[in-house]
């Protein structure tokens, strides 16, 4: 067990491109740190540098107080779980799990004791003599975990370990990973592109984009106080709605009406009297059906609903607002990552907004719905650079 520190770590390829740019990150002993971001953001490269599978071009990597930049992976005492598990196909489950110990020249009774112990934790006792080819996806995933935990290493590195599982199993294994990490209290760095995994698993989450860390924070803070548009849009499902807005005095002029400035921002964002363009971020759950909750304070408006998705416990109602749309590099990248960049709802005239309403809501496609927006929860972003005005205040 050990803490891991990255000091301005950079990965530069021979052609000059930088996959990771001066990333600094302190991971405490026993902490579960998530690196999350869209594909190509450098999260996997960062993990592979910690593992020693990629050379560090610049900066220092410190594991347990020791600078390990120049150590081979075998000398770093870390275990890694690969996305495709990378089980040795010619070895049984027992041999797979004991391979590292065998290389470390542990004696066979000790190896067998520790493998049995790990197998018990992971419920793999019945499969120890089987080959990986004869295991199900979930079992293979557990063997990959087992291979990491038998070693009691300084740290676990996990590279999208659940992304090859089907949705139901993924949720189950997510709990399992969390349980194992809490039980072993081993420092863990976990890479994922799935923000749900990031939010549910991590003690802290580092959101990356374009080789840079955007924000490192607890899942709750990331959600409630994102520092920029990218983090705000990346974290949360369905994503935050972004609307063009204008600040005039203590009023936020939104496409569907005027909202008072949230209390905590009041007085801090005084324009110079002429007003100022901003991007307003509204989480889907901060809308509510005004008929279901007539007493809820906030901005009331009616909107023509185009699509309603029922989740059983709640409804997602989509409606369009007339506006010029929001333009920002961060949002373009988010849309590209989600594969939405070609869809007309992005960058078109009307802007699609999603509201998360109570299941009792009477919202119907093609009809107008009365909605209320909790104006206290509106977040404001600078359209120039995407910095959060809310978090800065």
């Amino acid at each position: 067990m050990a803490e891991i520190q990255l000091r301005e770590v950079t990965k530069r390829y021979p052609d000059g491109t930088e996959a990771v740019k001066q990333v600094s990150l302190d991971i405490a002993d026993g902490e579960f740190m998530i690196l999350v971001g869209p594909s190509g953001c450098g999260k996997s490269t960062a993990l592979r540098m910690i593992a020693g599978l990629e050379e560090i071009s610049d900066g220092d990597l410190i594991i347990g107080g020791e600078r390990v930049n120049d150590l081979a992976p075998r000398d770093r005492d870390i275990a890694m779980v690969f996305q495709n598990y990378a089980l040795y196909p010619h070895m049984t489950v027992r041999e797979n799990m004991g391979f590292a110990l065998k290389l470390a020249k542990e004696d066979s009774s000790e190896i067998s004791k520790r493998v049995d112990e790990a197998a018990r934790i992971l419920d793999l006792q019945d499969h120890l003599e089987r080959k990986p080819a004869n295991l199900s996806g979930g079992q293979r995933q557990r063997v990959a975990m087992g291979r990491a935990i038998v070693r009691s290493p300084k740290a676990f590195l996990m590279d999208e370990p659940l992304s090859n599982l089907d949705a139901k199993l993924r949720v189950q294994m997510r709990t399992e990973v969390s349980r194992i990490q809490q039980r072993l209290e081993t420092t863990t760095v976990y890479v994922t592109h799935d923000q749900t995994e990031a939010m549910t698993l991590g003690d802290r989450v580092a959101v990356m984009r374009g080789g840079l860390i955007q924000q490192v924070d607890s899942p709750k803070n990331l959600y409630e106080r994102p520092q920029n548009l990218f983090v705000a849009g990346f974290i949360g499902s369905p994503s935050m709605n972004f609307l063009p807005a204008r600040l005039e005095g203590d009023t936020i002029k939104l496409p569907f009406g005027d909202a008072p400035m949230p209390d905590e921002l009041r007085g801090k964002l005084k324009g110079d009297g002429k007003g100022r363009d901003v991007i307003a971020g509204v989480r889907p759950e901060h809308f509510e059906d005004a008929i279901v909750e007539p007493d809820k304070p906030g901005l009331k408006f009616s909107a023509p609903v185009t699509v309603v998705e029922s989740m059983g416990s709640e409804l997602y109602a989509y409606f369009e607002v007339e506006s010029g749309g929001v333009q920002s590099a961060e949002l373009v990248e988010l849309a590209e990552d989600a594969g939405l960049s070609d869809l007309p709802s992005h960058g078109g005239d009307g802007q699609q907004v999603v509201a998360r309403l109570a299941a009792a809501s009477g919202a119907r496609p093609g009809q107008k719905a009365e909605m209320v927006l909790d104006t206290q929860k509106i977040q404001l972003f600078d359209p120039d650079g995407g910095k959060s005005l809310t978090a800065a205040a």
Partner: protein
Amino acid sequence: MEAASVPAAVERAGKKTKVRDPAKPRTPWWLWLAVAGIVVFCLFPFYWLLNTSLKTGADLSTSALVPPSPTLSNYEAIFRDANFTIALKNSAIVALVTTALSLIVGSFCAYALARLRMKRKFLILAIVLSISTFPQIAIAAPIFKLWRDVGLYNTIPGLVIPYLTFALPLTIYILTSFFKEIPRDLEEAALVDGATNFEAFRKVVVPLAAPGLATAGILTFIAAWNEFLLAITLTSSTSARTVPAAIAFFTGATQFEQPLGTISAASVIISIPLILLVLLFQKRIVAGLTAGAVKG
């Protein structure tokens, strides 16, 4: 796709014959006939060799499908002949050493070609392969001259070295493609598990490339075992002469007898290791060991 075709197959099968396993359509009789024809065509020469090896004296000139009076005397004769037994030993040494060296050196080269980020990798592979296209007759005379000068003429290393020059390109080519198929993650997993680069190669990559090693090894062994031109050019006595060359020096039991029977017997004997080898490793060659390495 499969699900859709199954009911149709059942229907077809049901009309003609009794209902059979629908997944396995009946092999038509003409296919069996064709297979039988090909087998006879391929194996008949070998049968004739066997046939001849069991005949002596006047029988050798008959063309009967079954030897009139089968005898093992030709076999007894060749095994009594020290020239043959020593040649057999030489053949075994040359073929085994060539195979072992070619696999060891070849696997290192192939691993480098498969894994290292090198410029012009394809060019290197192409040059390596082009070596194997030289006609042997073109290199036999220069090697003969060279070996006479450096003292490798009529020695076992004098045969192994030129054999390696044509065994290595093939081995490297086969193994490169096998190594490329092995997911890089497996080696990385081994490195993180505490293996050195060489341990990762020896304990993970090599076992997984076993079918490739078996294929390359068998092809090399067969080539070295059967090689005739260099064997007869580069040897002058029994000290290094291999069986194919030794057979050329066979004489009859008496001066007036044709050595046809003993030549056939010797040919049958040297075919046996090859047949055994292929039968033994057949499964290994066919089996894909990487199944299950990565999520299937």
